[in-house]
């Protein structure tokens, strides 16, 4: 914890800020990328959101009070940025979030950065049908293998609630995969 406090202080201090920020980016860029990619699905969109996430982190680091871990705080920013991105895009197109996400999944077949077979495509279709919270929990638990305690800190939800959400999500995904 001392190390994190020192690191956060480095991020806030002008002389050490640039170097500390580089360490921060190097440490978290991949993890945050996959968190974002799981929501927006498309690589170019994920890249945009990831850059905006780090810019937001850079601009708001002075407002980070240390109430939660830096990791949880950044994950929360990345998640909110990605969800807002989806909402903005769906609003622009005049369709619901669900319809927009179904559209994203249908675009995966033509996506050069998606090399999934039929079952993997169907898995993404199944995830797209989940409610937002279950979708987030499923992605974070199943693909990123985060601990419930970590997800709890990021989404600010109880561990019990998360376990229930994950259980429901897995059941729904399995049911979807069983149907032809």
């Amino acid at each position: 914890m001392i190390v994190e406090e020192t690191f956060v202080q480095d991020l806030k201090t002008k002389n050490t800020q640039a170097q500390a920020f580089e360490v921060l980016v190097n440490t978290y860029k991949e993890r945050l990328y996959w968190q974002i990619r799981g929501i927006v699905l498309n690589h170019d969109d994920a890249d945009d959101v990831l850059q905006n996430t780090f810019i937001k982190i850079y601009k708001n680091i002075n407002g980070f009070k240390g109430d939660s871990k830096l990791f949880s705080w950044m994950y929360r920013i990345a998640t909110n940025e990605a969800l807002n991105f989806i909402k903005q895009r769906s609003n622009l197109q005049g369709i619901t979030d669900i319809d927009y996400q179904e559209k994203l999944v249908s675009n995966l077949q033509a996506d050069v950065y998606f090399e999934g077979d039929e079952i993997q495509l169907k898995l993404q279709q199944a995830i797209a049908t989940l409610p937002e919270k279950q979708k987030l929990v499923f992605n974070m638990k199943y693909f990123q293998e985060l601990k419930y305690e970590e997800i709890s800190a990021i989404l600010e939800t109880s561990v019990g609630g998360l376990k229930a959400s994950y259980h429901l999500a897995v059941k729904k995904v399995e049911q979807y995969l069983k149907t032809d």
Partner: protein
Amino acid sequence: MKKNNKHPFKTPEGYFDIFQDELMEKLSDDKPAIPKDSAFMVPDNYFETFNDRLTGKLNAETKVVQLYPVNKIIAVAASIAAIAFIYVGLNWNTTDELNFSDLANTDIEAYFENNDFGLSSYEIAKVIPVTNTEFSDILNSPIENDNILDYLNENINDFEELNIQENE
């Protein structure tokens, strides 16, 4: 072979002994295996080059902020507004002869008079809808019958030229 005493059917040797194993095997086959790999990929060297692109974007954003601070924009806008206000105030009473509508009309008339558009009647007809269009729609004042008769009297030769039978 095992035979049921009450009906004539029989089962293969050891069928019930291996049934459970076969069932479990089949169940595990049927169980939908959720693929762990999400199959999403990133371009080559994406993460290696990410820092440079982020730095570029970050610098661009902070430079914009430094070059055009809001306070400066407000100050410049206020200066322009003040100068414009003083200028209008000083010249307010010197524009008695022309008002805005006069200026607009004279400008438009001068423009049409001084510019040769070279539009053929066909080109004009293309932009004016024929249906439900009356002459009165494009004329400020209606044409008096006397004026039409005068015009015809003065230009009667042109109409004679249009007499098809005579020109045949």
